[in-house]
């Protein structure tokens, strides 16, 4: 199986070049990634993504624990059609939401994605995640400084002859 990204295998090479140009050339513009990332709480949470267990990842990301809440609605399939692409989404009726994160408990690294929800953005997100095997998926909503969670099991079976 090829690992190139389809019909334009050179694209990534070109993009890498463009990236360094962008960092040098656009550093003084307000939207540049550099200055925005300088804020401590706005940095890519590298440590949290390195944690193996869900509990450690939550601790590294938030420094506190979450309590289950029926105001967090987590939607994921019962049986994933393919563990490589599992549609997962979350919505919530909680107020003052500042972030939403997804953890896949049985993955090698539990934290899958973490989203910042600025003022004015609806607290809800849909994305597609990889799951190594049958696992609990945990969504955490950070609202008014507290953490609320919802958990759902997704059955993952590996491929064969089908489709």
């Amino acid at each position: 199986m090829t690992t190139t990204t389809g019909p334009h295998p050179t694209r990534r090479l070109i993009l890498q070049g463009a990236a360094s140009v962008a960092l040098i050339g656009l550093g003084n513009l307000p939207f540049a990634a550099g200055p925005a990332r300088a804020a401590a709480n706005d940095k890519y949470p590298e440590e949290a993504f390195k944690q193996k267990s869900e509990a450690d990842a939550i601790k590294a990301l938030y420094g506190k624990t979450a309590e289950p809440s029926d105001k967090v609605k987590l939607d994921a399939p019962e049986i994933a059609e393919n563990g490589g692409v599992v549609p997962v989404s979350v919505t919530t009726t909680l107020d003052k939401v500042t972030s939403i994160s997804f953890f896949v408990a049985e993955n090698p690294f539990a934290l899958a994605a973490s989203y910042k929800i600025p003022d004015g953005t609806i607290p809800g997100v849909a994305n597609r995640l990889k799951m190594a095997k049958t696992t609990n998926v945990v969504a955490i909503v950070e609202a008014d400084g507290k953490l609320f969670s919802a958990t759902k099991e997704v059955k993952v079976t590996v491929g064969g002859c089908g489709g």
Partner: protein
Amino acid sequence: MASSIRVRANANGDITEVQALIQHPMDTGLVKDAKGELIPAHFIQELKFECNGKDVFVANWGTAVSKDPYVKFSFKGAKKGDDLKISWTDNKGGSDTTTAKIS
């Protein structure tokens, strides 16, 4: 060259629904290639959406986000014709940016 980013942003009243699909391998670093060698991790770490000079959505991703990642969210305060700027950076220093008109 076509952008790595596909965006649909539709305003319905005060709420704009955004869907984005990004062409990226999102390699975990745990998978071996045909020769039995590990394919190094290569994944988008940050994806940002800005509208009218303000971040409206920021994603921090690890390797568990699917290949050619997809995300959907909604935000308030934009109208048809406004620009939505989308940019991503990956762990190897790659990046891409595009601007879409809200329709």
